[in-house]
């Protein structure tokens, strides 16, 4: 292919600027690399040209749909000298895998929005930010699967970070001979500085009590995913669901996986929507599991809206028992995300004095804030 270099250079720089203005992270360096690539003069066909720019201008899987979109717009509609020479239809991004179709939908959907907004974010960035702040109960059908993906990714990252931080803490136990000798070198062979080797600290034990009653219906689905994310990275996680009865789902999650557990729970949750007996459920937790599971190093997270229909006073007594046996008690209430929310529901106000942290859990953002809490333990 014969290329008219000066005009191609101009067109390329134009494309880089265009891409930047539309939100691709393209800097001078990328443009320069693209020009160098052009100088190689090896473009046998349009496809190679497209692949080259793609490799240079994208730095993330999420960039790809936006790039395709922009490439199509710029090189197919702009009518200058360069364009006339490349009349052939430029690759259309049909071969992109199906997972990306969602993202490309965002890319296109965000098209108009991006015109007005500051365009530093990549494709999907806006949607991600928006969804992170959306209340779980208000997520549209269509967005639900996207949100699931984001949630899974973010929670997985969070679990990983937590895991790493825990490994860093070293308890001093035995002398690490190898590192001691190494350190002694700078003191002429005298082991002045002793280096220690410790066991990896035990992972913290997490107990999760999840309310799946009718009033929590919209939230419990996402919260269960959260539980799942935590469970798959912490070995010592015990999880329970309750509405009118308590049920241990640790085993179910471990052996059946998330999807099946969700399916298994759904019909029951419907039947149970008659009312929530938080107090009763915590009581059976205390009777059946607490002595075995709760230790001074464990942390209990209750995910519930605190709308208790059981007898007065039961919840207070039981939550007190739990508090006494654990290191931290966290209560996550999705309703707390609403403006003007006051924890005035009887169940909630009974429990509140014994709770160390009372947080909201109505959207992704708020769930991610838990990270600080979890790692402070």
């Amino acid at each position, binding site marked *: 292919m014969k290329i008219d270099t000066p005009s191609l250079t101009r067109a390329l720089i134009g494309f880089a600027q265009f891409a930047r203005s539309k939100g691709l992270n393209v800097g001078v360096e990328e443009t320069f690399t693209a020009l160098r690539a052009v100088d190689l003069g090896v473009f*046998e066909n349009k496809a190679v040209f497209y*692949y080259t720019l793609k490799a240079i201008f994208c730095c993330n899987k999420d960039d790809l749909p936006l790039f395709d979109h922009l490439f199509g717009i710029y090189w197919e509609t702009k009518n200058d000298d360069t364009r006339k020479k490349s009349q052939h239809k430029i690759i259309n991004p049909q071969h992109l895998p199906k997972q990306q179709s969602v993202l490309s939908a965002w890319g296109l959907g965000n098209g108009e929005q991006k015109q007005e907004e500051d365009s530093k974010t990549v494709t999907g960035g806006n949607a991600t930010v928006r969804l992170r702040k959306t209340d779980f109960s208000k997520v549209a059908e269509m967005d639900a699967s996207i949100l699931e993906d984001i949630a899974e990714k973010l929670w997985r990252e969070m679990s*990983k970070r937590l895991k790493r931080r825990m490994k860093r803490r070293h308890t001093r136990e035995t002398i690490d001979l190898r590192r001691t000798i190494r350190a002694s070198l700078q003191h002429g062979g005298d082991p002045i500085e002793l280096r220690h080797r410790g066991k990896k600290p035990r992972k913290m034990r997490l107990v999760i009590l999840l309310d799946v009653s009718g009033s929590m219906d919209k939230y419990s689905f996402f919260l269960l995913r959260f539980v799942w994310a935590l469970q798959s990275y912490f070995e010592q996680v015990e999880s329970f669901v309750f509405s009118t009865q308590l049920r241990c789902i640790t085993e179910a999650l471990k052996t059946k996986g998330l999807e099946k557990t969700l399916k298994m729970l759904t019909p029951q949750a419907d039947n149970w929507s008659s009312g929530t007996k938080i107090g009763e459920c915590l009581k059976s937790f205390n009777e059946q599991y607490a002595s075995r599971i709760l230790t001074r190093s464990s942390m209990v997270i209750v995910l519930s809206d605190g709308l208790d229909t059981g007898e007065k006073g039961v919840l207070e007594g039981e939550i007190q028992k739990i508090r006494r046996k654990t290191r931290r008690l966290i209560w996550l209430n999705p309703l707390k995300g609403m403006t003007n929310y006051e924890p005035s529901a009887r169940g909630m106000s009974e429990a509140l004095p014994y709770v160390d942290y009372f947080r909201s859990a109505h959207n992704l953002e708020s769930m991610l804030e838990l990270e600080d809490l979890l790692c402070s333990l």
Partner: protein
Amino acid sequence: METSINDISALISGFDRLGYVIDEELATVVFLLLKLRKPILVEGNPGIGKTELANMLARLLDTQLIRLQCYEGLDVNAAVYEWNYQKQLLGIKIQEHSTLNEAEKEKNIFSEDYLLKRPLLQSISAKDKAPVLLIDEIDRTDEEFEAFLLELLSEFQITIPELGTIKAQHVPYVILTSNRTRELSDALKRRCLYHWVDYPSMEKELAIVYKRFPAIEHKLATQIVHFIQALRQKKLQKTPGVSETLDWALSLMTLGYHTLDEQAIARTYGCILKSTDDIRMLQEEGVESLLIV
């Protein structure tokens, strides 16, 4: 030699001769790696030949492959260099009664003989020709190491305080792979050419199977690939990659099957599904829908 590769089609046919099926897109990226000497970052699901790409490139260029497998907690000692201090201690003892003065003694024990070269240092100290440096699963390292790598990839030099700065005589061809368990830093990504590898299409996967096992029967190969392609559409814990396809094909051939049937699948579940949940799911759902006759 790299000089013999002057265009992309030469690259494709070169890989083809080695038995590696490469599409034009990836070939373009590799070509840019060879010509621009910019590192490439290859992302994609496990088991679709990311590591193999580096292997094949090294064979194609007839050069050394240096591999750095990343893991959590990988540090400079394991990745760049380390003084062989046991040997140094011995060296000190040996020199104790020699007539050398102190400066000479010191120079002795901090010479290259006492240096343990780790992959990154090896890659820039290659003498005769540029090696291929594969930094595998970069997403598993810590951010600190990533920052260090960034410095190395832009300067291609390493400073050892006792020896001075070692600059690469031949800039290595760097291939980074990532399974996307974590987002890499922007700075590192911008240093690299990016390529996302997806599961291959039916035709490409079939071509890969034929390439690897020229003797395979046509029907069996088609059935295997069709089955795997259909399986990937399902929600699995671990989606089988190309390496699973190849393992499976080999197993079935070794067991003497000519066509794929339920019994054959039942005997060889372990080749394609690596999670008990997935196996159970498949057993419950049955395999009829995935099979073509």
